[in-house]
């Protein structure tokens, strides 16, 4: 099971703050995104250029490896401070 989270604009576009996805064996963020896009058009924003990715709360690239139990978050460029 992969725990997926969306924040800010992405949370609103996804219509959910988090969801869980069954996953057996190691995969990558990129193929996780493909799976999500196949499931639902609402995740279209995940193919835009300005998507930040965090795997287990650490900023990561789209080729980052993910395994069962990992937390993967997608969010737009940050605007705090």
């Amino acid at each position, binding site marked *: 099971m992969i725990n997926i*989270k969306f*924040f*800010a*604009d992405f*949370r609103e576009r996804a219509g959910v703050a988090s969801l869980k996805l069954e996953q057996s064996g190691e995969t990558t963020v990129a193929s996780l995104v493909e799976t999500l896009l196949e499931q639902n058009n609402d995740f279209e924003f995940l193919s835009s250029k*300005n998507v*930040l990715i*965090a795997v287990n*709360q*650490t*900023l990561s690239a789209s080729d980052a490896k993910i395994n069962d139990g990992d937390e993967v*978050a997608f*969010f*737009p*460029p*940050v*605007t*705090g*401070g």
Partner: protein
Amino acid sequence: MMIKVQSADFCVGEEYSRLRQNADSDGAIVTFTGLVRDFNQDGSVSSMFIEHYPGMTEKSLMKICSEARMRWELGQISVIHRIGHLTASEQIVFVGVTAKHRKEAFEGAQFIMDYLKNSAPLWKKEGTLSGMKWVDSKTSDEQALTRWYEDKQVS
């Protein structure tokens, strides 16, 4: 190192006193405070909502402070970031740094703010005349990072 992510306001005088109390032999204390400005690119801002990634925000701020310590000899570091609803002119963020010398304290505090702006998972939604709207990230914030690239990079 003290990191706080909170909805409550903070008192700069108290934060300064705490830094000073623990400053030991440090001769310089620099504080930065960010306020909700009463305007921005898109018109008048009357209110603001700040969303964050619980857990990762704190982790990210800790990492930024550790990176600052690797670059400069710093004493005390305090970072406070508010979340939730804020109104015009309220305090959003506080960074306080002590160091033996002023150059380190200034640069350490500026570095922490520059990286916080670009890597801490926090998002602003502003209430403008045309409704609530997510704030766009600024290229000037990305540019501000380039001055720290000489050495190494916070991911």
